[in-house]
């Protein structure tokens, strides 16, 4: 008994000593979501940052992604319990955390000048900008398995009709044409969300009308197409048998191993494929979700998450230092070295290596001269209904038809608009 007590006392003293030693420098707490890629990149960036700033240590804290994570971020901000720096989405989800009340503006910080304008727009609220990009721009579209395309002699489609013809050919050859993974419900939204380039090609001011409550998805034929495409793919019988129970990881496995020919997804998945199936990385290509007009083919673009500083932080000076480091060419290079090149960086002066995976090589031309892109709707309008992923699961599994789903979603969006206090709702 005495021995155990002694040990306990010793332990406490030791812990106390360590704590005092650490208190001499500043500890920045940092909340990120649990994606393995994100953590790997930030661990490497933090190592380099700490080497340059020996008096600052950065402590990573993780949170779940998706709706669960949104909840944690909102609650911690509202209660003043947020970490010194945190990672969170840009665009509509950024607007929903009430940035003007909770975040520290970075408008006047010198490092804000390093950031490309197209990103700054997605982290602007009122007069100020608040976030630093943490990764590359992404495309939303369709990954395809290159060996299957070669084996069947197929060509990358530029119209929806050609895409469906490819699907039919793949199905006729006895293979799964499209992988869908509805156990991770968020993956079901891609056919709808990646269609925004095609919507704005037809109705250029759709985002504005939509935010003003003057255009609805169900009554705008171009906007309804995304839901119809989801339904067509299901009705064509192109899906993997276990589409309702498969997960995002299953989707990547099917795509990389040639168990399925297509997988609609954001291009950040390149990083996950590289981590899990590095030997198959060269088997995976990418194309934008085709519209009905083959002559007007372009890509719907997503912005990466941003880093923000909450007003509740007591170490704002050090937090700015960290953000400045993340907004540097050095940080881009660390990311490329850690998980490879995934798309164009949003920091001025950052470059990509000459050798990039095929899916990234397929992505880059859309961003270059002569290529065409449009931001996803969630970066143009603050409204995104929370039930979209359930509705797209229903439409994508034949439980509900496209028109019904679109009407239900228009209704769902109303709550979000009212919550944000938008006029005209």
């Amino acid at each position, binding site marked *: 008994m005495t021995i155990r007590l002694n040990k306990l006392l010793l332990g406490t003293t030791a812990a106390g000593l360590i704590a005092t030693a650490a208190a001499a420098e500043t500890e920045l707490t940092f909340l990120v979501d649990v994606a393995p890629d994100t953590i790997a990149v930030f661990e490497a960036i933090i190592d380099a940052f700490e080497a340059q700033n020996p008096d600052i240590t950065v402590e990573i804290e993780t949170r779940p992604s998706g*709706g*669960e994570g*949104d*909840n944690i971020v*909102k*609650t911690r901000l*509202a209660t003043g319990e947020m970490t010194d720096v945190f990672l969170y989405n840009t665009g509509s989800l950024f607007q*929903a955390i*009430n940035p003007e*009340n909770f975040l520290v503006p970075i408008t006047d910080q010198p490092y804000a000048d390093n950031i490309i304008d197209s990103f700054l727009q997605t982290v602007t609220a009122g007069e100020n900008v608040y976030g630093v990009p943490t990764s590359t721009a992404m495309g939303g579209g369709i990954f395809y398995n290159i060996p299957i395309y070669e084996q069947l002699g197929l060509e990358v489609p530029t119209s929806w009709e050609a895409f469906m013809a490819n699907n039919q050919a793949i199905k006729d050859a006895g293979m799964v044409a499209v992988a869908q993974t*509805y156990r991770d*419900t968020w993956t079901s939204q891609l056919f709808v969300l990646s269609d925004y380039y095609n919507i704005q090609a037809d109705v250029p001011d759709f985002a504005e009308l939509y935010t003003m409550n003057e255009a609805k998805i169900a009554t705008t034929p171009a906007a309804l197409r995304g839901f119809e495409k989801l339904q067509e793919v299901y009705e064509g019988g192109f899906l993997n*048998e*276990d*589409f*309702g*129970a498969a997960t995002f990881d299953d989707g990547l496995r099917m795509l990389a191993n040639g168990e399925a020919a297509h997988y609609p997804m954001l291009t950040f998945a390149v990083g996950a494929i590289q981590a899990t199936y590095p030997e198959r990385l060269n088997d995976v290509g990418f194309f934008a979700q085709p519209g009905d007009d083959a002559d007007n083919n372009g890509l719907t673009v997503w912005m990466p998450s941003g880093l923000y500083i909450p007003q509740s932080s007591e170490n704002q000076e050090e937090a700015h230092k960290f953000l400045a480091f993340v907004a540097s060419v050095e940080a881009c290079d660390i990311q490329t070295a850690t998980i490879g090149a995934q798309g164009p960086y949003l920091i001025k002066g950052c470059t990509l290596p000459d050798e990039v995976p095929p899916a990234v090589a397929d992505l880059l031309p859309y961003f270059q001269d002569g290529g065409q892109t449009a931001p996803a709707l969630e970066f143009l309008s603050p409204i995104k209904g*929370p*039930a979209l992923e*359930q*509705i797209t*699961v*229903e439409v994508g*599994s034949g*439980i*509900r038809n496209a028109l019904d789903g679109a009407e*239900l979603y228009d*209704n*769902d969006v109303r*709550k*979000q608009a*009212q*919550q944000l*206090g938008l006029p005209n709702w």
Partner: protein
Amino acid sequence: MPTAQIEKKPRKTSGSPYPLWFFLPAGVIYGVLFLVPTFASLYFSLTRWNLFNSTFIGFENFLSFVQEPFLIKGLINTVIFAVSTALLKTIIGLALGILLTSNIRMRGLLRTIAFFPILVSTIGIGITFAVMMHPTRGIINVSLELIGIDGPGWLTDPTLALYSVAFVEVWRGVGLASVIFIAGLVSIPRDYYEAARIDGATKWQQFKRITLPLVQPATATVMILSFVYGLRSFELIWTMTKGGPGFSSDVIASVIYKQYQAGFYGLSTAGNVILFILIAVMVMPLVAYFNRREVDL
């Protein structure tokens, strides 16, 4: 002076042997942790609230709960889930209770096994069964295939998902039900059965005329407990289907949670008020009914 105090006390507390301020600590805790939040939530359910500021909007939140198809679906599913799990837990629990009070071998071991699921984390059970119910790779459908049956998508078929989760909930909760039944069964005096046997009553008659009426208090407890648990059930549904596919296995609790995740704090509070009213409205008559039956016996 002391005598005066003693004289005063009985009048004030109307016969209680303790002075009123003894109740103060408990009263403060109850007030702060229960009464204040309850009334605050009644207020916030009438507002559009983002944790930072709230706008009073009357009954609009309740209106959207009633109007929107998937919120209504959640209400219906909640009732289906609660009724089916409560009935099954009662029936199977009683059967298990009778089996485990009879003279069978390894009774202690079997009782432990029946009770075991209660000790396992609900989240763990949900994740495990979700894997076992995978339509192509899950052990259930793989086994069914061996005997030539093409198993359905237990959690992915919209008509089946809710019942699959209800089945797992019964598996999880039946152990507690049978323990309550065992306690009720062993408290029935053996004399009744002996007398009945001498009068030539069959096993079925003994069960119907002695066991069933005398185990009534246990039945009521199991019914009400599982019914209330079923009404507010959340963990299993969330880990197994997240209310899906689509909205087909949503219950009120998962709908409330999703509204909360989306940041619709007013709406989700309104959902909680509805859940509270629903439980009160459905359980009170049930309790009253069972109490009356008990008096009749």
